[in-house]
């Protein structure tokens, strides 16, 4: 069989998800294999092998991964050193000297990834214009290189003061390192961030250096394997800000992909919002290990360059994701006071929940769902896996129900209640704690376990509408497989707006365009395929924070538009902060260029309404399902999602099974299949 297809892969903590998208028809085929943490490729290979697609027909392969994030969180990165400007090796340890928990006498700052004895200083200095005051002393660099080798350093971060204006010294150090110790990984700050604030830049550079060996080894391995299996094109990785970059770039700048997987889901949810004309979306992704929540409010998915991961600043753009350790694999346990706790530890893919029958001895959320009749033991993963209900029942009795003096049902229902409360807190953190009521939002629920819990979450949070999107079990992978390439470029141009010569602006923009062209051509994209958007960061003279003002017109007419820029900035400032200062002098800080390129050939299509009644072949029978709101088991109709048609309506209680996930429709709810195949849940009238 030879049909062109695109492939999205999302490697999660428990499962690796696959979405094969037929380029001609837009039809999707889904798959899921257990993630193999020891060697991630095995899980990927299993998924590709079991499909009827041939990688030589693949026109686009993109993936999201948590490998970099996990390396950071588990502190499994390389042995590191820092090279910095003389007098400043402690900037990374001192940080901003603030105490986030300001009444806590025992507050601890984030611990630097690089110990003080491996933070080296060299003589070199730029001034605040980027001009060289003291030239780089190369002999000192050579001396440091000796010590790097003696100490078996794997990865080096280089960050000099004011390098955001002039990267020359950093680049020379990189060349020396590449020449004298090519085996050591190098990251220089100016390739990641071109903005001031030395601590934040150092931290970003250090994280990149830290995860680089792990990420590079992984990407090298899988791209080789893809090639061996006939894949002929560039291979892409999803960035933390949404949008793809080539694996080559991801090897150099893995910090840009640190929130790769969660960003894929957030961006895909926002796209669903667009399809449905919904401006306010809560993206709820519950997999095997974690639950990631993000927000699109008034059509805008929050992206920030001021992210922190465990209080470590990361100065690259990222979708704001609130992540907690709550998934299908989360383990239920009793603490010393015999209180029922769930997570954050997960049974992961191996051994997995008790019911997987792979030797797991810890009851998980999935076991509880099975025991409450929300999962059919014989139809899990499209019947590819059968679940051992007896074993789960025996162990929950022994470990939880008996010690707590509860019935089996009460214990299982308790597990679901505890995990739901935790996830509700995560949603609250993004809505209620910002003064937004969840009832203004639509919940887009996906991931292997998201649809199982969505209806109850919506009930608890008073969310009126739930969407279970197409390919909900592999939704991040789908989002990634349909993404565009994206890169953001910026250059500092710090001067009074009035003093800016239009020729200089053009020169900087040309430079950014050239940079975009170069980077995209390295990814196999010609300049004619690029879409670019320009913007300028402005502020009132004396302010620090800037407002980004888009430059929308034609480059030929830049001069005319430029004259309007100041008043446009006044408008934006007023809109955001509620005041402006029209007459005051303004300052230009950065010019920005965002470049995107479509790589996906596929568009999701609308299908015709086929009536309210689901086709007979979609009906699978009944399950006795426990509902907490009723505190009893009710007979629920089960349907095969893949066979439901647009326009079909189902009244709760019901169970909708699809490959890779199962949705529970509570008794007070109903659903309709929309023209794209999404399930729309709403309360019964």
């Amino acid at each position, binding site marked *: 069989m030879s049909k062109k297809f695109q492939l999205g892969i999302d490697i999660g903590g428990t499962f690796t998800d696959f979405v094969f998208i037929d380029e001609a028809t837009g039809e999707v085929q889904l798959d899921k294999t257990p993630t193999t943490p020891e060697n991630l490729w095995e899980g990927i290979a299993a998924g590709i092998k079991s499909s009827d697609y041939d990688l030589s027909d693949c026109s686009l392969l993109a993936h999201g991964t948590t490998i970099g994030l996990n390396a950071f969180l588990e502190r499994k990165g390389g042995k590191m050193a820092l090279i910095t400007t003389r*007098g*400043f*090796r*402690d*900037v990374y*340890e*001192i940080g*901003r*000297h*603030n*105490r*986030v*928990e*300001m*009444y*806590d*006498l*025992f*507050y*601890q*700052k984030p611990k630097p990834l690089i*110990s*003080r*004895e491996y933070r080296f200083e060299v003589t070199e200095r730029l*001034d*605040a214009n980027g001009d060289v*005051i003291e030239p780089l002393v190369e002999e000192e660099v050579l001396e440091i290189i000796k010590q790097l080798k003696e100490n078996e350093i794997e990865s080096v971060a280089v960050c000099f*003061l*004011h390098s*955001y204006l002039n990267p020359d010294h950093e680049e020379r150090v990189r060349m020396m390192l590449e020449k004298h110790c090519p085996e050591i990984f190098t990251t220089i700050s100016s390739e990641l961030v071109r903005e*001031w*604030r*030395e*601590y934040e830049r150092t931290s970003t550079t250090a994280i990149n250096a830290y995860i680089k060996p792990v990420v590079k080894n992984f990407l090298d391995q899988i791209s080789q394997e893809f090639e061996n299996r006939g894949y002929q094109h560039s291979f892409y990785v999803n960035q933390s800000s949404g949008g793809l970059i080539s694996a080559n770039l991801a090897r150099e700048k893995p910090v840009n992909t640190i929130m790769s997987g969660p960003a894929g889901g957030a961006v895909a949810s926002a796209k669903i919002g667009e399809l449905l004309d919904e401006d306010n979306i809560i993206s709820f992704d519950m997999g095997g290990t974690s639950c990631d929540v993000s927000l699109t409010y008034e059509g805008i998915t929050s992206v920030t360059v001021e992210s922190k991961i465990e209080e470590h600043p990361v100065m690259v753009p990222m979708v704001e994701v609130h992540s907690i350790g709550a998934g299908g694999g989360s383990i239920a346990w009793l603490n010393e006071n015999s209180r029922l706790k769930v997570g954050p530890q997960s049974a992961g893919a191996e051994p997995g929940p008790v019911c997987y029958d792979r030797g797991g001895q810890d009851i998980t959320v999935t076991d509880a769902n099975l025991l409450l009749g929300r999962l059919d033991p014989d139809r899990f993963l499209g019947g590819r896996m059968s679940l051992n209900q007896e074993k789960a029942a025996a162990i929950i009795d022994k470990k939880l129900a008996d010690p707590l003096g509860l019935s089996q049902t009460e214990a299982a229902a308790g597990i679901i209640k505890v995990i739901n409360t935790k996830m509700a807190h995560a949603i*609250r953190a993004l809505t*209620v*704690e*910002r*003064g937004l*009521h969840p009832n203004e939002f639509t919940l887009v629920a996906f991931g292997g376990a998201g649809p199982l819990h969505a209806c109850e979450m919506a009930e608890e949070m008073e969310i009126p509408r739930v969407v279970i999107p197409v390919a909900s079990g592999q939704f991040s992978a789908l989002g990634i497989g349909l993404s565009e390439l994206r890169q953001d470029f910026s250059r500092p141009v*710090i001067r009074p707006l009035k003093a800016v010569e239009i020729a200089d602006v053009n020169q900087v923009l040309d430079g950014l365009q050239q940079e975009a062209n170069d980077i995209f051509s390295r990814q196999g994209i010609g300049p004619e395929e690029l879409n670019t958007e320009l913007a300028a960061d402005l502020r*009132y003279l*004396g*302010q*620090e*924070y800037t407002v980004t003002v888009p430059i929308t017109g034609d480059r030929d007419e830049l001069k005319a538009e430029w004259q309007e820029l100041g008043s446009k900035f006044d408008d934006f*400032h007023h809109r955001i*902060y*509620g*005041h402006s*200062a029209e007459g*005051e002098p303004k300052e230009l800080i950065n010019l920005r260029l965002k470049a995107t390129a479509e790589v996906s050939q596929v568009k999701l299509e609308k299908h015709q309404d086929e009536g309210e009644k689901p086709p007979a072949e979609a009906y699978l029978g009944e399950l006795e399902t426990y509902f907490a709101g009723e505190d009893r088991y009710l007979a629920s109709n089960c349907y095969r999602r893949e066979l439901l048609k647009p326009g079909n309506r189902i009244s709760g209680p019901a169970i909708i099974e699809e490959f890779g996930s199962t949705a529970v429709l509570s008794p007070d709810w109903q659903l309709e299949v929309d023209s794209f195949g999404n399930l729309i849940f709403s309360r019964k009238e």
Partner: protein
Amino acid sequence: MSKQVLDPVTLEIIQHGFVAAADEMKINLMRTSYNPIIYEVLDFSVGLFDSQGQIISQASGLPIFLGNLGEAIKTVIRDIGLDNFAEGDIYMINDTYTSGTHLNDMTVISPVFYQKDLVGFTASRAHWLDMGSKDPGGWSPDATEIYQEGLRFRSIQLYDAGEENNSVMRILKDNVRMSESVMGDLRAQIAAGRTGERRFQHILSKFGPETVLEALDEMMAEGEKTAEAAIAEMPDGNYQAEAFLDDDGVAMDNLPVKVQITIAGDRMTIDLEGSSPQTTGPVNCGLAATISAIRVAFKAVTTPFAPVNEGHFAPIEIKVPEDCMFNAKKPAPSGVYGLPLMTLCDVIFKALADAIPDRIPASHYADVCAIFLFGEDPRTGNPYLHVEPEGGGWGACPNRDGENVMIAIADGDTRNIPVEVIENRYPYRIERYALRTDSGGPGRYRGGLGHYRDYLPLDHDPSLTTTQERSKCPPWGLHGGQEADYNTLIVNPGTDQEEQIQKCAAKPLQEGDLISVRTGGGGGYGNPHDRPVAEVKADVIKGYVSAEAAREDYGVAIDPETCEIDRDKTAELRDMS
């Protein structure tokens, strides 16, 4: 009286709604201000208050503003009369003797109305660069009267029902230095107030005023209960401690800071009897600021993580003598009022060290070691003023070393100014920003280190105002831990012109004079000879502790070159003790 209990979800949403409103005010102010003391250092505070001036919610920033923001509102209410506010009014106040702070901390207050009823207030306080003091920026350690420290406003109307009061604006503009920055910050504060007002009204319209008021009562009651429970856990008794400040900058030395604490059931009394009388120099604090500092210390040992509201402070009683540096009376100067407050907090902790030993660390550097550098920027010909708080070492804890270089207790989420930002904005090069070896107090757990921060003026002759306190009573250790190195500033270290400075006002310096700020460390915890040799060795390898100090203080003989331990010598050194 039985009360209808609000459902917990509504209560939570309302509470978070107010916290979010304060946070939004904070972001708005920070992002639109003109002054690094606000946008980088975050020397400000914002909050929402009920119609009596009680805190509903306050955004993090400067903890030392934790009590006196409400005092400022209460003063305005007293001066104007609750019935005389109109929608769109805005008032300002920086009066030391009622709102507690020095004159540079300007509070902007607006009433909030809902359906024609006054329901509460928004307030923001921010450190303005200049108030027209004798030296740029204020903070002059040689001031003897408040009149040298700038303009003082009490309950002055900036907006009358939405109409700007041009006269006041002109007075301001014509009497402060760097007026563009000051006026820009005022604009940012006004806008932050509007944001708070809108959010406040939004919450009221969503839940109805009755529900909101009920929720507020319940929030306060809950805060009170939590604080009472925390006090009840502490053993009853009388506890006291004392420390002293170097001097008042003018006439008085060795100023005692004395605290007596009585814990009885779920009540705590804090009495400052025995502390220094009012001083000639500017280290006096208004009573409201003193109360604020005590609240910070109290919160730190009781409910450090709960969102702040007035209820948390109901169970404490505070007694301050009439003639006291902590109860400033007109016309006492108070430009450097923050200094004694940090020591006051540490003395409160010291007093409680035996009552709740597992919750009290050793003393920290207890100053912000502020520097004020000013002059004419040779690049533009305009006057500039660079103000910066400096971090220092924190005390060692019962189970670990103290943190290196963090900001003092009175300042919370307050940040340093990045070197790259300073060099862009001001005519300086920073030559070094580094940890200060051996500055932490030795102990089983070592105190955190202070820093070196070296400023080199470029192409001009600047002036310097600074205060570096506690050189005579350095940060103390606990339970056998030793004291740390103290805060100081040295001009031209290691040269013939070397000069050590603890306090100075508008001191003229020359181009090329290196100004080296050296902040103190934190005290140690437990006997330093009990520190495992391996940990001392690691400290020497990292350069936190020198080989000499390892030997002198820790009884560990270590080769400075190879970092090899001399086991016999070490055993001998440790035996001797």
